[in-house]
């Protein structure tokens, strides 16, 4: 590694001025937040977002020429991005590149952003061609992580990350901020292990799988990158009990312990998280059943049926799960109604598919890793998406207009 300079403080602000337009804004934003976290997870650095005014690090995208940047870009290919060394703080992406996430096509915004942030933090180019800080883009890597040379470089500048971060530096706290909480992300799970905390058919028909502090999308062509849960849903902890999206209300409810979080897309609803009072804590799973437009919550061998838009009388719940969902296991890990109209239950490394009469179909349980996570055989690594799979891709419709009734 080569060191080009350093910031004289470890608590830095950043501002996303604009990001490449080839990605949905929430995907681009999540990619950039993850890029910051690669560095903050190995060095005692914190990054706090500001929405306006000056920031130490400023990220933006521009075309061949910009009135605000003396370095021009050269169209698609060749130069992808550039950044200033400390304590200047500019990070620029070439607007004409095909910026992508979760695919081998185009240029991965998350990896390039992490590289340029390395420059903004003071690292020069590494001679290790597999290092993040190598000058040439090595392509998309689904399970990307920093190279030991990258870690050694940033720690040479700022030291190693310790459990407690000192408060020795002065910070400007007068601006409206969104805090990017520095957390220990914990071990990155292996999607091929097959066991899950929660699954959810989310907005726009995207299937999300949750395990530990991470979440990833499941598609017919492969898996998306693993993100920290809090990088997508700000304020949400990891190790969730259950997750469910309702096309009826557009609400996503996450459950953990005795708390429930509500989001619309990636924005938390005001007043959440709330305490779960009317159903038991430590739920096992949750699903939305489009036939009756109700949310089902599972714990142990019982379930609660909840109408999001009406005051539900829970006095007759929990009811035995087997009375309605025949042939499914007690204490499921996860559950969801999926794009094919079937209900799925997950437990351990296996899953069950239910027919329209909510009876487990013959031939189940089957292996989750193989059929959902694109793993070639149980407990192998995830493929790049060209295996056959039961996962198909269509889009769910939503209906109804939200009216707030609460579950607490």
């Amino acid at each position, binding site marked *: 590694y080569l060191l080009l300079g350093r910031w004289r403080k470890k608590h830095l602000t950043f501002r996303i001025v604009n990001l490449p337009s080839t990605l949905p804004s929430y995907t681009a934003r999540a990619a950039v937040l993850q890029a910051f976290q690669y560095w903050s997870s190995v060095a005692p650095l914190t990054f706090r977002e500001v929405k306006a005014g000056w920031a130490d690090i400023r990220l933006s995208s521009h075309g061949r020429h910009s009135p605000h940047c003396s370095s021009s870009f050269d169209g698609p290919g060749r130069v992808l991005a*550039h950044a200033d060394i400390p304590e200047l703080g500019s990070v620029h992406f070439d607007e004409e590149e095909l910026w992508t996430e979760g695919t081998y096509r185009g*240029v991965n915004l998350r990896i390039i952003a992490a590289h340029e942030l390395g420059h903004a933090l003071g690292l020069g180019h590494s*001679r290790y061609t597999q290092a993040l800080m190598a000058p040439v883009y090595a392509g998309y890597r689904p399970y990307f992580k920093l190279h030991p040379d990258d870690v050694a470089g940033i720690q040479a500048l700022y030291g190693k990350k310790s459990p407690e971060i000192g408060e020795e530096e002065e910070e400007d706290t007068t601006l409206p901020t969104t805090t990017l909480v520095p957390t220990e992300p914990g071990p990155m799970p292996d999607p091929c292990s097959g066991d899950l905390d929660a699954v959810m058919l989310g907005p726009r028909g995207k299937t999300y799988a949750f395990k530990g502090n991470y979440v990833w999308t499941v598609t017919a062509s492969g898996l998306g990158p693993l993100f920290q849960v809090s990088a997508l849903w700000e304020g949400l902890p990891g190790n969730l009990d259950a997750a469910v999206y309702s096309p009826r209300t557009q609400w996503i409810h996450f459950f953990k312990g005795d708390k429930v979080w509500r989001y619309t897309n990636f924005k938390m609803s005001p007043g959440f998280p709330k305490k779960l009072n009317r159903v038991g804590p430590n739920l096992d799973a949750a699903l939305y059943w489009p036939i009756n437009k109700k949310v089902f919550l599972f714990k142990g061998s019982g379930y609660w049926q909840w109408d999001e838009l009406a005051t539900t009388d829970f006095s007759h719940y929990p009811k035995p799960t087997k009375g309605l969902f025949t042939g499914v296991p007690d204490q499921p890990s996860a559950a969801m109604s999926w794009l094919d109209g079937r209900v799925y239950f997950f437990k351990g490394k296996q899953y069950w598919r239910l027919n329209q009469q909510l009876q487990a179909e013959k031939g189940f349980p089957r292996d989750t890793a193989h059929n959902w996570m694109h793993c070639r055989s149980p407990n192998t690594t995830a493929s790049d998406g060209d295996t056959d799979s039961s996962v198909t891709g269509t889009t769910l419709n939503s209906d109804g207009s939200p009216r707030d009734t609460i579950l607490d």
Partner: protein
Amino acid sequence: RVVGPGEKEAAVDYLLQYGYLQRPLEGPDNFRPEDVTEALRAFQEASELPVSGRLDDATSARMRQPRCGLEDPFNEKTLK
């Protein structure tokens, strides 16, 4: 393989842009062949390519790959 003048010019531009080749403050505008050879060797070594000092296909292909716009530090003169 015979390297065309356009390809050679592009390679020199690349070496110059990314810090492998330094334009002298005084003297002629053209680089001496040995300077270009030395810069190519540095680039090949940094890119984990066979070090020949010649503009071969692998070196040209490497120069066409997408990359960061910042200079590389792999030139001895730059490091000094």
